[in-house]
């Protein structure tokens, strides 16, 4: 039996026709849905649903947190808040270390530039990047 031919000469592909119909349908549907989610009614409805869900779960969440805290205290184990507090202190130490690093950079720059400036030579790089130093070796 000869294959059915499409007007452009290519063999008729029923799957391709189905895809075209499907894609056209999806395009129309997509446009409608974009308009739907852009309405004030949708915004109000989702906001309201989210608020209700979070408000309703709050008492359970608080109860679980309290129970967990008491259990950890009885077991002499650190709680989430203890870890949070510790992490914040470590971050503060990191900030101080970065301040020290910045000061060292400034001092190194001054030391490098000072004698060079006295000899009226152009300023050189404050600190040679390790990667570039490696490239020179290569």
């Amino acid at each position, binding site marked *: 039996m000869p294959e059915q031919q499409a007007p452009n000469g290519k063999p008729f592909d029923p799957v391709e026709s189905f895809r075209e119909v499907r894609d056209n349908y999806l395009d129309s549907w*997509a446009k409608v849905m974009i308009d739907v*989610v852009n309405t004030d009614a949708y*915004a109000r409805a989702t906001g309201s649903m*989210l*608020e209700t869900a979070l408000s309703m779960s709050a008492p359970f969440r608080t109860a679980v947190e309290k129970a967990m805290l008491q259990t950890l205290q009885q077991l002499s184990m650190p709680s989430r808040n203890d870890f949070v507090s510790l992490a914040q202190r470590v971050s503060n130490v990191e900030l101080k270390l970065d301040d020290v690093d910045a000061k060292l950079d400034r001092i190194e720059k001054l030391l490098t530039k000072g004698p060079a400036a006295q000899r009226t030579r152009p300023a050189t790089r*404050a600190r040679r*990047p390790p*990667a*570039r130093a490696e490239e020179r070796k290569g």
Partner: protein
Amino acid sequence: MADVCAVPEQLTGVEEKLLTFTKVVNEKIKIDQTPREVIWTLNKTRLIRYQPVLPASQRHKVPLLLVFALMNRPSILDLRPENSYVHYMLHQGYDLYLLDWGIPGPEDKDLKFDDYVLDYLTRAIRKLKSFAGVEEFSMLGWCIGAILSTCYAALRPDDGLRNLILLTAPLDYSNPDMTFAKWIKEPNFNVDLVLETFGNMPGQMMDAGARILKPVENYLGNYLRLWDNLDKPAAVQAWQAMNTWVNDNIPMAGGAFRQLVTDLYRNDRLIKAEWHLRGERVDPANIKANLLTVIAEADHITPPCMSKTIIDRVGSKDKTLHYIHGGHIGIMVGSSANRVTWPYMNDWLAARSE
């Protein structure tokens, strides 16, 4: 007439296709693989330097710092070697750095834009300049990264920023018809309740929000596209790389998210020069760096109206506004990115990086 005997074979074919489809959807592939070194860290933030591919003599003098959003991984800039902005820019001769904000934990819930701009970004830039031995640098901010870059450029105009590229920058929130603006305006969205519950804004919630902007395309069309191309390995790999990135959601620090909602979406303080970070007013008029603003014409997350007004507010003498056909992410990773977006940005930047 259809061959009835062939039906079992066809069903087997569909079954195999379904199995492959399920495997592809659930499998994560390796992305973000360009060689790099970490040169600075602070809390979760890391300053990364990508290994240059050209010798120093062939590289541009001014290094480039990439600043990405707070709520997604920056790996979108380096998806796969054949589709990587990082890879492309290294081959164009840039000394390339990336600020990876990391994943905020419960201890970071109070971090605000103030901290990100004035502590993290400022310190990372100091380190970059010291490491590279330069006084000037360029910065590319994408999405929320563009907000951070704009704030930095406005607050520290004399800190050596020579070129600023803002990519799909959400800076102007004056249009009340934007979908996000409708969703999170008062009283629709209770930001305090959400942050009281979660501390940080969960990545999954933000991801769902972004997907619902185009629900049919993101929840159905995306998977149908994969189904149709399942016999094309290159298309499958590209889909998987993108899917891996899209599903790698990270939370946004609670303090910063609250500012995004209240100061920006609800009160539009940045473009009106009324936003204060640690008491310092962020005035775009203070920006002096050469400015390129790239707008995606079909951006549904940052509509063009959010990005175009900045060009009239900055003090820069050299400023360019450029539109590219495509979406928020598509202009940087889509099929035309390496033919249109990247070469354009490279031409602009290369001419200003010597």
